[in-house]
């Protein structure tokens, strides 16, 4: 509980301290033993992380904290390429289509001082951890890592990860959410999942200090970090759900960085010389899901017409300060060899839309748009703009306001609704397949299925050679864009932050926050 000491001296001292701290901004706390002053970092974010173990859930709030606490065997460059690079494994090699050999770094220590060994890797990626509390399988990481068959320990610093079947993307999976390495010894010592998640132990650049539900999470630097000396004396994530309160905290000098800033706040923040807006597109695509079991939407020509009627460029310019790209298909350039560069861009063609509607015999029947009240930034204003665009070509779309995402899926859906999907790893199988594959969120919700797409996906999972994979991916893109669209891609999602200019941190292309020495902005601080 919050502790108050109501003495006159404390009140006066507190008032003075509040005035001084508010006026000094980015706060220098104390000189570090190494001689360089480090600063306390105060981050205002919108949600509280309901767990700090990496396998249980992948909520944005969790992913903003977890990268400070844990490392993965393979990690990614924080640049435009997002290329894979060594993490806790200093190198790895393919043995065959079903196995990878990892050579662990020597001298890596956990926050409790214990050394990283092959046992920790075998535990972290093994069933006792991946299946979660009670081994019930209620973990989000399992959905991506359930292809792992076993971990063979070769010696204290060498492991072989084996999968149940051929898996061309195992490296990607082991660089993604949920594959962080935790301390087996600390987990065993905790004795229960509840105690473990209350104070998890990893090898990351910061160690856990405390957390208070809906108030804050506090971290301290892990000075023995293998990747270099952490830049901050401490990190405090303050939970501030209200946007206005977050922005005010930054304006008042009580915070150094705040998350989830919509474009309509950019101008107010930029008025202050000491503040700036940063961020941009992330590996997430905003879509409108279409229920093909709806009597009107079952005709793919109507779904295609809805897509052709949307002026995406205008939406991005007016609602997003022109700061977000429109992808060419449900894919991102960071997919690497799996990115189909010449796949056609989305067209804005109202005339063709009208022609398709006429061809389909559409007579103005009502299409329902189940809409949440700005669950996504600019959701309502975007919906209103699209309603007007659809009306221009003769489409009769009516908004039905909903309270939560559960209501969106209430059957029969017979509607369109908003969605956004983060790439679990950078490949078709880690992104659209995650939504539209046989076990995808919307397939499971019963609004779409396509047997050709499912068969191609199954084939893609077992295809290792990039040149053999590309034609499969191309056809899968054609199905979800033209042949039988399950959704309309709107644009790449964005994440924007407001921060003090004297904080050299740089955002990455994911929703995660990286305050470790691998952040390009913090490398030399």
């Amino acid at each position: 509980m919050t502790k108050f000491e109501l003495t006159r001296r404390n009140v006066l001292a507190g008032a003075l301290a509040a005035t001084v701290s508010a006026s000094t901004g980015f706060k220098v706390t104390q000189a570090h033993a190494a001689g360089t002053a480090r600063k306390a970092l105060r981050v205002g974010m919108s949600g509280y992380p309901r767990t700090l173990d990496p396998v249980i859930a992948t909520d944005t709030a969790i992913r903003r904290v977890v990268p400070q606490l844990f490392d993965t065997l393979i990690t990614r460059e924080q640049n435009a390429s997002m290329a894979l690079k060594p993490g806790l494994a200093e190198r790895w090699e393919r043995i065959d289509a079903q196995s990878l050999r990892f050579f662990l770094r020597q001298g890596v220590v956990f926050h409790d001082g214990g050394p990283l060994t092959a046992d920790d890797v075998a535990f972290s990626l093994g069933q006792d951890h991946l299946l979660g509390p009670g081994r019930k399988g209620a973990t989000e990481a399992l959905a991506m890592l359930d292809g792992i068959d076993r971990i063979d320990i070769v010696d204290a610093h060498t492991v072989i990860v084996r999968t149940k079947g051929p898996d061309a993307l195992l490296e990607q999976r082991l660089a993604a959410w949920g594959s962080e390495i935790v301390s087996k010894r600390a987990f065993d010592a905790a004795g229960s999942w509840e105690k473990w998640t209350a104070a998890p132990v990893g090898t990351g650049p910061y160690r856990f200090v405390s957390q208070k539900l809906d108030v804050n999470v506090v971290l301290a630097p892990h000075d023995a970090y293998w990747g270099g000396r952490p830049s901050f004396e401490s990190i405090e994530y303050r939970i501030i759900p209200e946007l206005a309160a977050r922005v005010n905290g930054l304006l008042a000098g009580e915070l150094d960085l705040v998350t989830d800033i919509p474009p309509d706040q950019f101008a107010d923040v930029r008025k202050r010389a000491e503040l700036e807006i940063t961020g941009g597109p992330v590996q997430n695509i905003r879509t409108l899901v279409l229920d093909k079991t709806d009597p009107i939407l079952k005709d793919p020509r109507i779904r295609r017409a809805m897509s052709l009627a949307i002026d995406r460029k205008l939406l991005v310019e007016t609602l997003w300060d022109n700061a977000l790209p429109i992808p060419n298909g449900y894919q991102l350039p960071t997919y690497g060899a799996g990115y189909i560069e010449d796949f056609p861009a989305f067209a804005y063609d109202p005339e063709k839309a009208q022609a398709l509607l006429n061809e389909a015999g559409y007579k103005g029947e009502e299409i329902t748009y189940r809409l949440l009240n700005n669950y996504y930034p600019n959701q309502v204003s975007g919906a209103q703009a699209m309603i007007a665009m659809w009306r221009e070509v003769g489409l009769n779309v009516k908004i039905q306001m909903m309270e939560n995402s559960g209501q969106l899926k209430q059957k029969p859906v017979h509607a369109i609704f908003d969605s956004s999907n983060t790439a679990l790893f950078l490949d078709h199988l880690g992104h659209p397949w995650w939504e539209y594959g046989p076990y995808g969120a919307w397939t499971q919700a019963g609004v779409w299925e396509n047997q050709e797409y499912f068969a191609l996906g199954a084939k893609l999972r077992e295809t290792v050679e990039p040149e053999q994979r590309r034609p499969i991916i191309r056809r899968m893109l054609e199905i979800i864009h033209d042949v039988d669209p399950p959704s309309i891609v709107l644009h790449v999602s964005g994440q924007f932050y407001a921060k003090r200019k004297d904080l050299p941190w740089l955002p990455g292309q994911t929703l995660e926050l990286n305050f470790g020495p691998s952040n390009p902005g913090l490398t030399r601080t």
Partner: protein
Amino acid sequence: MLHFILIRLARALLTILIMVTFAFVVLRVSGDPVLALLSPETPASVVEAFRQSWGLDQPLWVQYLRYLLAIVHGDLGQSMRDGRAAVVVVAERIPITLLLTVPALILNIAIGIPAGILAALKRDSFVDRAVMTSAIAGFTVPSFVLGLLLVLVFAVELPWLPSGGAGSIQQMILPVVTLGVGGAAVLARFTRSAMLEVLGEAYIRTGSAKGVAWRRVISGHALPNAAIPILTIIGFMIGNLIAGTVLVESVFSWPGLGSLLVVSVMSRDLAVVQCILLFVAAAMIIANVLVDLLYGVLDPRLRGTGRASGGA
């Protein structure tokens, strides 16, 4: 008196049962709690496992009966978001909310009653108009607007006070003022009306005609008679204060019951929402019983009846 207490107790229990049932049904029929808590892209297998582990795969009536049975055994359930007992999650927020509501109530009374008395005594004067204009302004400005204005002035432009959070006296000032101003305005208006009504009574004129000092007439005759409607309003204000914390705690990131209620409703943390509603219902019922008892203290004619003839 025993009969009165038993009837009040039975009514209180019935009120709590109705509210618990209402909350139980509304929270479940307005959306799947599991889908509200988990992100929309969560795999179906995880959703199903989560649903089973919390007993949400059972029919609604089974869940309801289990819930009532658990309450009877003193078990208010576990928070789906936090994993701890809901009563523990809620109990640790109560003192934090009281740190706002108690000073705000004191502020209401300390400003509202003297201002209302002053306005009544100086009826139709500049003072009266000034007090009533301020009261109308205080009453009509929504608390979240006032809160944001106070933050912009006293935290952003004049960095005298923190913009939010909890942990120090300074962080209490702006939310307490925000929460207190509206209630003080309401109380000032009601106090003025009650005083004006009493001041027009014959016994006040008689007291004055007898040569009793004006101050004594006010404190000895006018105020006690005006107190019953004022007390009734204060009873209602306790409920308003609790409701007001929902907005004020959000604006000031104050981690009390109000902000917990908002987050818990949004994430359908059923046990926590129901626990908060139980607490609020209990607080309202206790406040009303106390007000009823105080009627008897203030007006000897009401002793033994347990109810006020005057007031709202």
